[in-house]
């Protein structure tokens, strides 16, 4: 939207963040009408930091991360700036994107089973990245793949490298996926719900692994999840998305201690917590808004108990409300 909106930054102090996304808008046209899937999203992630992205299904988390990878599905129009260590790739050629992908920016997907090529050996799937970007020979690359497998905690990596994905358990597959992503030590890792398909016990293991690896390599991570609790366990900073928009952005502690947006508050409140049992859980009424065209006003207004005419008429912009806290809501003062 407006170009002069304050650029929110996860770590404004650092000169060139690992990833900077500015005014990212993803839209498509159907039957002559334009609809925005992601609207005017801006954020930065510094080296060694993790940005959590939360939001309900369909709010544009995946599309955002695909856009960052230059992999937005055909038919979608991506506007805005995507800077990898300062280099803007938004309008770059497919070749430039290909050179960046897997090398400087890598991605871990939700379903480790379907995200791995079922007919290619694990080791080769890892080595392939090294061959592509490091110009390595297959033989050397295979060796390095074994080391990478070891580094993500896969037991007997040399044997596992010769296995096909179906022979690995879900957790192992996700570890292999991470090994692929980290093969070239990318500056930015985009993880799209990397633990959603896993059991809680395995989820804990993977989260630990990601934190450890980040501490070792200093990779900036964009961690996407619909689960606030999970995000709270890994993220330094968090953005909350609703219907394609960022509605709140804050330092993790800040966000949970003092959520400002009614949506964020609702989300936190609706989670049943054994520590604070209640008879009836509070609810956010209604259902998640569909991305729609020609929208006016706050996208959350229809479900918001506080909404008034202004909310329905005018779309709120992200505004800074704390040291590292931004929120897009007309009603924050009243909250």
């Amino acid at each position, binding site marked *: 939207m407006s170009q002069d909106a304050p650029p929110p930054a996860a770590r404004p102090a650092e000169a060139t963040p690992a990833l900077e996304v500015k005014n990212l808008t993803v839209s498509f046209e159907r039957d002559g009408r334009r609809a925005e899937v992601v609207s005017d999203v801006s954020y930065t992630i510094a080296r060694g930091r993790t940005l959590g992205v939360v939001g309900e299904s369909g709010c544009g988390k995946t599309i955002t991360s695909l856009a960052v990878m230059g992999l937005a599905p055909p038919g979608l129009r991506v506007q805005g700036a995507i800077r990898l260590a300062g280099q803007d790739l938004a309008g770059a050629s497919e070749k430039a994107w290909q050179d960046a992908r897997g090398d400087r920016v890598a991605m871990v997907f939700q379903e480790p089973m379907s995200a791995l090529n079922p007919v290619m050996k694990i080791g080769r799937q890892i080595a392939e990245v090294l061959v592509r970007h490091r110009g390595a020979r297959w033989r050397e690359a295979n060796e390095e793949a074994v080391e990478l497998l070891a580094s993500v905690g896969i037991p007997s990596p040399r044997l596992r490298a010769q296995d096909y994905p179906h022979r690995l358990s879900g957790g192992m597959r996700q570890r292999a996926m991470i090994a692929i992503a980290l093969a070239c030590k990318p500056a930015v890792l985009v993880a799209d719900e990397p633990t959603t398909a896993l059991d809680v016990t395995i989820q804990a293991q993977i989260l630990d692994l990601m934190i450890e690896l980040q501490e070792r390599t200093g990779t900036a991570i964009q961690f996407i999840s619909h689960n606030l609790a999970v995000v709270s366990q890994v993220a330094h900073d968090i953005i909350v998305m609703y219907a394609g928009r960022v509605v709140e952005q804050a330092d993790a502690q800040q966000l949970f201690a003092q959520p400002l947006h009614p949506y964020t508050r609702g989300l936190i409140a609706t989670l049943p917590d054994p520590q604070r049992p209640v008879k*009836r859980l*509070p*609810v956010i*009424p*209604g*259902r998640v808004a569909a991305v729609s065209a020609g929208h006016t006003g706050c996208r959350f207004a229809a479900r918001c*108990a506080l909404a008034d005419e202004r909310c329905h008429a005018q779309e709120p912009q992200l505004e800074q409300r704390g040291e590292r806290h931004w929120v897009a809501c007309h009603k924050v003062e009243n909250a």
Partner: protein
Amino acid sequence: MSTASLPLESSPRPLSIWALRWRALRRHKPAMASLVLLLLLAAFCFSAPLVGALLHVDPNATDLFERYGPPTATHLLGTDEVGRDVLLRLMVGGQVSLAVGVLATVFGGLLGIAVGVLAGYLGGRIDAFLMRATDCMISLPLIPLLVVLAAIDLGKLGIPPDVAQGPDVSFWRIVIIIALVDWTTIARVVRAGTLAVGRQDYVLAARVSGAGTPYNVGVHVLPNVATPIIVAGTLTVGRVILLESTLSFLGVGVMPPTPTWGNMLNNAQELASSAPMLAVWPGLLIFLTVIAFNFLGDGLRVAFDPRATK
């Protein structure tokens, strides 16, 4: 806060799944064009009595003095090798060809549905047995098999000679043998569909509530595998029309003088150099019909399956 009743956002008139599909199909241009073409072709074929009455021509009337006649006001497409009206014979032949295609598909489809539903819903040994049988059927050489079936002596099967030699026997024989041979695709499709539907939670829910197999097959499975059946059936009609023409070429199809596009084409091919149009018309009509069925089937697949890519 308590759960509030929610207003619905969609249109006030409820659209059934079929209405939605029809809408999707209408958007699929090749399929719609094919559907229109097929309707036109059917209309063309079934208007034979009308056109015959209008032009005062009898599709079976031979006239040796008007062989290979050029197009005239009465014979719009000219006459054939024994002076019959080509246009009318194309129409009548089309009726037979379409009838062979549709009937063989329906019979084969019923057989395939029975086999597929039994295999898919009952599973276990019955499934294994039926699928083996299907594999066996598929491994048989199709065309020679049809040739043999077409030549089988019905008398040896104990069918009384007056039935075995009735005037329509060659038509029904072709319909039946093609149906007997061409049910495997539908059987597989239905089995796969039944397996998929049978695993759906709504079928399980019905079972929990006390539904038995017949109920589930009738109420849930069949309506829900209708889509792949329709798609496979559409493609089958086209394939059957082609098969009939091939059998006609081999001299074992529907026997003249009952015209079909297949045997008209076969008749005409001898005259390909002198009266090429006699071969062009039925060939073209077969081609158009079959390709239309193919496009329609493909369109149906896409329109009926939101997942299918264009």
